[in-house]
């Protein structure tokens, strides 16, 4: 029996789909059988981030409506035979699926796969409720800015209400800006949200490159963000991998003396 994890954030554009793709690829590279489920019905994007947009025949709504068998809708990754994508429908909307449908789908997928990673849509309405319904746990994504952190707090509250254990990925942290005092640090965000931190992903231009190419950055050894996702996957697998600490908030004299 596998494990289902929903990747959520409240706020859009903070890296849910990128995180889903990278975590899924990393887990598959560690030999786990993984299915990445695009829960963003009507606005699918996990397919294009994984570079599988040309292979879609059936989708999640087809599966739920029994227009095809589940296996027919699963797309095998080009590079990793352990990784599959269940794409979202682009022509339906969120109301095409119910939380019960998602529960049923996730339990079916958990029989076949070690990990079911669900990419949640932005917002806290129907699509969010659907994405949550079949999840055993949640990973909340935020960036160190005021609106994503505020929305993350709201989402964490809702997850607690649904009794879904959650951890946090702090995404797109700029070490330089934190050092300058112009961006909240990991400690600041932890203080505000009071939730276990699963990983810290630094701002990295390679993420844009990876999106352009449809090859998640986790495969790129020169991508700091990719390497961070690799460590996140190891932590999901129960390994004790430390979160590297970045030099933050050095005092003026310490900087001057190069300490």
């Amino acid at each position, binding site marked *: 029996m596998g494990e289902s994890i929903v990747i959520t954030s409240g706020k859009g554009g903070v890296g849910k789909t990128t995180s889903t793709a990278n975590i899924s690829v990393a887990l598959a590279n560690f030999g786990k059988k993984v299915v990445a489920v695009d829960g963003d019905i009507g606005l699918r994007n996990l397919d294009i981030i994984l570079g599988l947009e040309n292979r879609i025949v059936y989708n999640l709504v087809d599966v739920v409506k029994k227009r095809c068998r589940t296996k027919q809708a699963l797309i095998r990754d080009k590079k990793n035979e352990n990784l599959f994508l269940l794409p979202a429908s682009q022509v339906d909307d969120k109301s095409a699926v119910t939380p019960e449908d998602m529960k049923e789908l996730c339990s079916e997928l958990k029989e076949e796969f070690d990990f079911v990673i669900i990419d949640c849509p932005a917002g806290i309405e129907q699509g969010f409720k659907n994405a949550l319904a079949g999840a055993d746990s949640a990973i909340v994504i935020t960036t160190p800015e005021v609106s994503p952190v*505020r929305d993350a*707090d709201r989402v964490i509250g809702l997850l607690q209400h649904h009794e879904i254990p959650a951890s946090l990925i702090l995404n797109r942290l700029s070490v330089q800006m*934190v050092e300058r005092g112009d*961006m909240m640090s990991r400690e600041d965000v932890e203080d505000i949200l009071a939730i276990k931190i699963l990983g810290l992903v630094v701002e990295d231009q390679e993420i844009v490159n990876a999106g352009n190419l449809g090859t998640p950055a986790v495969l790129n050894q020169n991508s700091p963000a990719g390497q961070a996702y690799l460590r996140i996957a190891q932590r999901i697998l129960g390994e004790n991998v430390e979160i590297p600490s970045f030099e933050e908030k050095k005092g003026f004299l310490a900087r001057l003396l190069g300490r």
Partner: protein
Amino acid sequence: MLEILANIFRPNPPSAKTAKERLVKVVIQERLKVSESQLNNLKHDLYQVISKYFDISQDSLELEIQDKNGHPALTVNTEVKPTS
């Protein structure tokens, strides 16, 4: 080195501290599901009650929800004078 000089001559103070302070305030209020207008009503009621015992001005009465060691705390602060 250039960065240090840029920091000394920068026009604005670092903004992360302000971000954190604003967020702590808004997040605590939202967790308690208390609105700004409810806080104003509470402030008004407290003013009425305290006025029975002390001579206070409504302007000096400060009401804030703060984080105290990870728990929300209601802080009321006011100048008091004995009633004449």
